[in-house]
Every structure is written in C-alpha cells, then in structure tokens.
C-alpha cells in the first residue's frame, strides 16, 4: 500500500457516535453490523449514503449509522425516500422499516414504491410483533396469536410480506434472517446491486415480546433441514445431507429427492414461481424458503422522471422566467 492510497474502510467508518438503545440480544444489532460491514466492504461513501426510516424499533437504525439519515414518520419512509431520490438521484438510499411500519400503517406507500421501482434498497425487519408499543400483534402475526390486544387469539389473517411485494410488481424480493449473518450478507449484497426497488424481508428476533418466534425453522440445530435457500442458478436442494429437493409440478411445489430438484430461476417472466414458493411455509413438512424470490429489471422511476425533465430543458438551460410570466396574450395600458 502506497501512502497515497486511501485507507480501507472498516465497519467503524459507518458507526455513529450514538449509544445504541435496542434491547440486549435484539436481532437488530446483527442487521446493523451486517449492513455496516457490507458498506465498508464495497468502499461506500458515507456522505453519499442515506438511511431513511419510519417509526418502530427498526426505524432507529439511521441514528446508529455514520451516514446521512432521516427518521421520518410512521409508515411514510417510502414517500420521503421517493422525494429525496427524485431530488438527488445520485444518492444511495436505504430504507429501514418493520412489519408494523410497512405492512400496516405504511402499506399504501410500500406497494406504490414497489410498483414505481424507485432505485432504493428496502430492509423490512419482520418480528411479527409491535415491539416499541410493547407487544401487540402485528399484520404478520400468525392467526391465533395471543398478545395484549388479542387475549383470545388474533382472528385476522396475516400478510405474507413476500407475496405482498410480488403482487406489487416488486423487481427484487428476498428473505433472510438475523441469526445467519453470512446469509444476510449475501442477500443484502444482491439486493443492493439490483437496480430498482429491492425488498428484503429480514426475520428478526424480538427477545422481549416475541422471543424465538422463528425457532422451529431457524434454530441452528434444525435450520438445514427446515429451510431451503433459493439462489439463482442453483438447484432447490436442502437438508443436512443435501439430499432433499423441491420441484414445480403444475401449479404446486412438491418435495423430491435432491437429484430431481429444479434449478431456481427468480427472473422468469411471471412472478408465479416466487409466489408459489413463498407460500409453502404453512404446509407440513415443507421447508421455509429463504434467499431470492424475484430479480428482474424494469423501468426505474427516478431515472425515468429525470429523463423527462432533462429532455425538456433546452441545451441553453431553462428559458428565462419572463418567457413564462409574460407569455400568452398580453396588452398594454
């Protein structure tokens, strides 16, 4: 290394001086560390990076990042990010949200940012609970969830966040988990590289109000047998012995031997395979699919908006104000 070389960035370069106020053991710590390490690894410019968030535990994220950050209001982060990106298209914008913020109060903005395909990366922390308001069920809590506001069990069916995103024509949809930093790192890297809106659901443990809700699939002891990692060009194979597989049979996903497993392709014309796979979680004996469910290209909103404006401005620059104000029919008095 010569003296003129810039020193390599480390995670520290992305840590703010603020004390982190998440509960000890919260899954958010692992996500924060993964994002910081990832940004350092790609030599991201902290000054060109912005984290926009809504409200909830997850949305305190910007305060802990030594980048630009905007902790906005409940559910509205996608709309703030849209204005920011349109005003300043060169910024690298990350949107951090939770299941309450994005699936409930901000549902409208989420589906619209996905359909517009704004070039940002969305990290949706899903702990299936309202944490910051101290433990009410959320729109992703399973049917029958007994919490403070549902003493007899919830009776409203939960959203499947992946299917919501796919139905909103999202161009990149993925799922990972806070307890598997390696997987999280590769999913986040793929999401960030994608051009357009990337939607990443991160299963995240709330140690206080919904501890270990995902243990049945995610515990280290069972993870290999109970999850399948969907990766472009890889066969859908899983199990400790890598002996089990999944394949498409007509309109259903079926279990099969590893040798019969289909090769996963998240870039098919239809998003239907991703929808089918994201729906097998609730079927006995089927693994929880992780990884990338969708990865396609489409018109990017902020680019298209800028292109129209730039194409309209004459080469000599915007016309004088007088042309506008004094235009039309005028007369003298």
């Amino acid at each position: 290394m010569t003296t003129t070389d810039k020193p390599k960035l480390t995670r520290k370069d992305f840590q703010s001086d603020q004390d982190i106020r998440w509960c000890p053991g919260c899954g958010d710590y692992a996500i924060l560390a993964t994002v910081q390490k990832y940004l350092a690894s790609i030599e991201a410019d902290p000054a060109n990076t912005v984290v926009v968030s809504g409200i909830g535990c997850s949305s305190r994220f910007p305060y802990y990042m030594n980048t630009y950050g905007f902790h906005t209001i409940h559910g509205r982060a996608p709309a703030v990010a849209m204005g920011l990106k349109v005003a300043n298209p060169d910024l690298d914008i990350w949107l951090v949200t939770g299941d309450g913020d994005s699936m409930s109060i901000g549902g409208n903005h989420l589906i619209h940012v996905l359909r517009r395909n704004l070039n940002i990366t969305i990290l949706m922390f899903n702990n299936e609970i309202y944490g910051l308001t101290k433990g009410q069920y959320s729109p992703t809590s399973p049917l029958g969830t007994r919490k403070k506001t549902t003493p007899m069990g919830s009776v409203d069916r939960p959203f499947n966040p992946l299917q919501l995103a796919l139905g909103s024509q999202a161009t990149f949809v993925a799922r990972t988990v806070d307890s598997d930093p390696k997987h999280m790192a590769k999913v986040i890297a793929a999401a960030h590289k994608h051009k357009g809106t990337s939607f990443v659901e991160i299963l995240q443990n709330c140690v206080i109000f919904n501890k270990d809700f995902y243990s049945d699939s995610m515990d280290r002891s069972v993870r290999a047998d109970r999850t399948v990692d969907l990766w472009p060009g890889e066969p859908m194979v899983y199990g400790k012995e890598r002996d089990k597989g999944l394949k498409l049979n007509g309109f259903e996903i079926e279990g099969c031997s590893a040798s019969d497993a289909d090769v996963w392709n998240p870039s098919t014309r239809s998003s239907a395979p991703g929808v089918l796979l994201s729906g097998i979680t609730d079927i006995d004996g089927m693994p929880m699919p992780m990884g990338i469910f969708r990865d396609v290209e489409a018109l990017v909103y902020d680019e298209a908006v800028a292109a129209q404006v730039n194409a309209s401005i004459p080469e000599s620059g915007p016309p004088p104000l007088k042309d506008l104000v004094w235009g039309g029919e005028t007369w003298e008095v």
Partner: protein
Amino acid sequence: MTSNQEPTKGQKPQIVDRVVIRFAGDSGDGIQISGNQFTMTSALAGNDLATLPDFPAEIRAPLGTRAGVSGFQIQFSSKDIHTPGDEPDVLVAMNPAALVVNLKSVKRGGILVLNTGNFKELDLKKAKLETNPLDDGSLEGYRVIPVDVNARVKEALADSPLSAKGKERCKNFYTLGLMYWLYSRPLEPTLDWLADKFKKNPDLVEANQTALRAGYNAGDIHEIFNGQYEVPKTSSLPPGTYRNVVGNHAVAMGLVAGARLAGLKLVLGSYPITPASTVLELLANYKEHGITTIQAEDEIAAICAAIGAAYGGALGVTATSGPGMALKTEAIGLAVAVELPLVVLNVQRAGPSTGLPTKVEQSDLFQAVWGRNGDTPVPVVAIASASDAFEVTVEACRLAVQYMTPVILLSDNFIANGAQPWLLPDMDSLPKFPVNFKTTPDDRDIYSRDENGARPWIIPGTPELMYRIGGLERDQKGNVSGDPENHQAMSHARDEKIRGIAKKLPTPEVQGEQQGDLLMLGWGSTIGSLTRCYEKATEKGHKVGRIHLRHIWPMAPGLDEIFARYKTILVPELNMGQLVVLLRSEYPQHKFVSLTKVSGQPFLTSEIDAEVDRLLA
C-alpha cells in the same frame, strides 16, 4: 350597467361603464369556455374585469336538471372594478334549469337571453317546472330575448360535415357571438383561439367559427336586440403590460419563480384534489424550467415526497385543498421538527369533510394556524386575488428557505378559478433570495441558528457533514434527546423563529381614513368586495378605512397602533368567524365585529354595505 336605458336602433353603440353577464347551461354546454372566451376578448379590449366560474362538483350531472347547471359570471368595465358583480345585467340561459337557478340574482329589468329550443315540455319537466316561464308571467319585469339557438345553429351549419350532435355542440359559440355583437366586441381573438384549439380538425374549427359568426350576424341583421352597447377601454388601471390570469395559474408561475429566485430545483408532490389539481397539471407541463412533479399515491405521500426533496436540497412543494390538508397534518409537524423548508398550498373549498368541493370558503384558517399536534408554529400567508397570487407565492417560497420552515400558502376556489387582468411584474427587479447550503465543516451545530433563527441547510452527499434528523426531539447537534430542559429550549427556539418573521414584515397600509369610526379588515379573496364596499361607503361620505392582511401568522407589526385609531373594526370572512378569533386573542383591547357568510359563494357587496351602514348608523 349604469344605464338601464335601451340603446336606440341604428345608432352608435350606447356607452356604459360596467356590465355583468352570466352564462348558464348544462355542465356539458361549454359554458366555462364561453365565459373564458368573453373574458379573454374583454381583457384584450382593455377592460378591467373579474370573473366567477360557478360549476357543480359533478362532471356531467343529468342533462337539463337544476343540479347540472354550470355558470360563469363576468363583470367588465371601463373603470376599476374589484368583484364579478352582485347582479347580472344579462343572463344567457341555455335551458329552463339554468334560468330558474339564476333568475333570482339577475338585476330587475335585466336582459334574459333564453334558448327557446330547449324550453319544451320534457325540458320543463327535467327542471321541475309546472309551467313554462316563457308564457306564465314569471319573467315580467325583465327584457326577454327568445332565440331558438338549436334551430339557428342547425341552419347555420347545414353544410357542415359534422354529425347532428357535433353541430349541437357549437351552440355555445352562437350565443357567444350574440353577446359579442351586443357589447361590440371583436370576433378575432375567439376565431384565432378556435383555429389553434382544433387545428387537428378543420371541420370543428369551421363549424364553431361559423356558429360564432352566425350569432354575431343574428344580432346585427335580425335586430334581436334594439341596439348595441360599448364598454370603453379602462383608463384607471395603472399603466403597464397586462395579461389575463386565474389564481392557480399565477400560483404555478409563482412557484417556478420562487425556486428560480432561491436558486433551487423545484419538486412538487401532489395528489389531485379539487380545486387545486390544476397547479399539479400546470407544473407537470413546465419541465423545460427544470420542474419535477410527482403525482403521489395519496396526500400524505405527496407532502412526504416534498419533505424528502427538501432534505435533498430542492424547494419542496405540495398543493392540496382542505381534506388533503387534514391528511398532511402529521407531515407538516415533521417538517417543523426537522426544520426543512416547504411550501404547502391549500386552495380552500367549503367544508367540513368533503363539503362543497367546487365552492369557495375561507374556513381552513384555524387549521392552517393551529391544526397540528404539539406546539408547532408555522407561518401562514394568504393570497388575495389572481393578480396577487404570483407575488404571495414567491413570498411563501422566500419565507420557507430563509427561515427553514414549512409555510402554509392559502388560496381559495374563487381565486383559483377566477380571472383578472394582471399587471406583469418587472422580472429583473424581483428580489433574489439565493440559498447557501452549508458545505464545509465548522464548529457550528446542526441546530445552530442564524440571525433569522434558521438552522443551516446541509444536503446529503456533502462530504464530512453527515448528520441524522428525525421527528424525535433532538439536541443542538441533532441527536435524540429526552432532556426536559432541551425540549423547553427547542420549543422556544422554534416559536421565536416563527414569531421573529414579523420583525421584518412591512406594516400593511390603510386605504382611506387613517382613523375614525370604522376600519374594514379583510384577508384572502374578500379583498374585491371589501374594496368596493369601502369605495361605496366613502362615496356616501362615511369616514372609513380599509386594511388587508397578507400575513396571517405571524401578523405584521404595527397593527395594534392602527387598530387603536378606530372605534370598530369590521372583519368580514367566508367562514363562521376565524380570523376574528385570532385577532381577538392577539389584540384583546380592540373592538372587532365579525361578519360571516358560509354559503359557498363570495360576499355580495350589498351584504357588506348593509353591515357598514348598520355600524355607522
């Protein structure tokens, strides 16, 4: 008209100094087009004018019904005028419903031009009339001019290749031609407009132009009227170059200018809502000026996008009406908390809830000044008229960037759609207010304040100045703080910043008597009625003054001293009395009398005159 005398046949046109015409018909009859054409032609003829478009919220209500009546009133004059007029001298009614809905406001002895082609049994039934007004005596005392417009247009367009329906659609130009003849107006501006408007369809140009000429010639040849009138050019307007403008158009141009004077990009986030939508439509067509528009998924997203744009260093703007303002409330609070500039336009309409979407009211004043959670001060400025809109919009932009604050810009439906001649500003003399983003590190905190109390504006992308902002209370450095003393200090700082705006505002001028029995105080679109009433009171020999407030919050300095010079201050408003509450709380030592109207219509001057007379009796 100042003269009720009929002009004499075959003579030169009789000169009159002001005329009020109301065009009325079905929503689909092209009434607004006729009105706008008459307005443009009168403006080019050098008249002062004011208009009042009055249409239903429904796009095409059932034909011929009272609910479907669309109206357009114009007053044009050789003198300085301020309102669209109390009572039309002429009503052009395309069907019985348009006649009955509007008859009560027409001046006694006025002219009724009635399209008798639409006064058949079925038409009367649709208008819920038992008898035909043409022969039941109900029109006694008016000069009825019956014209079978349907038949005349059909004859005139006998050779046109248009379908029967297409021909019928030209009838508004026939009646417009009649009015052009009656008031000695040239046809050329409308002929040119038609040629341009339908340039892709020469048959339409030809048919409409023929209908216009046929109407004009009918006046001339068939002697439908006894003779012509003429309203000479006005000489009382200040000299200069004028154009005709409606409020929303002037606001759109003001926003482009505001951004340019600040040296910023403009990003408008908006969601269509009556009567503000045309601001979004217009700005979407100003891309050559570097304007970016976002039609957001809802009102909340619209303002949040504008806030995001402001964080990114653009002039963020959102445009809406009352119900949309309600939805934006939380986001305005965020902009106050993070101290980012923002212009929030509210084109007021009658409320509450959906209310009367196409009618005028000034009832969002409380909402603008106070309608947020927490102590959340926001400056509020109000547009008075279409010709005032450009300047006030630029003022809103200036306050936003110089004080790093959201600014609420109030307009209303009457201003938004009403037309006025506008004395065009000298563009070179518009004061610039360039924004200086903070770009270099120093020891000042994120929430350090300049002489205006404003924090520095740092945009993402600036090296070494990374900072975080948010809606949680924060300390000077921008870090989250729950410290009680800090919250007290920050609350005061926000409040002092906004109150401090007043220090640099000019004291509004009083028109007329500088002291005396009565001061007439107005805000917003009542300025025309108040000015006319002030003139009438002065003509009667009353000692009255008139003042208009552009800055609703904070209020300009010097008002206390002005108020002290009058026994009574009359505050007419198109609401249940909102500004008057603010005035009474700020200046409790003075006597304010409230005059209110909430019918969805502007004040008639006669309504204010009566109150002035009562107070001075």
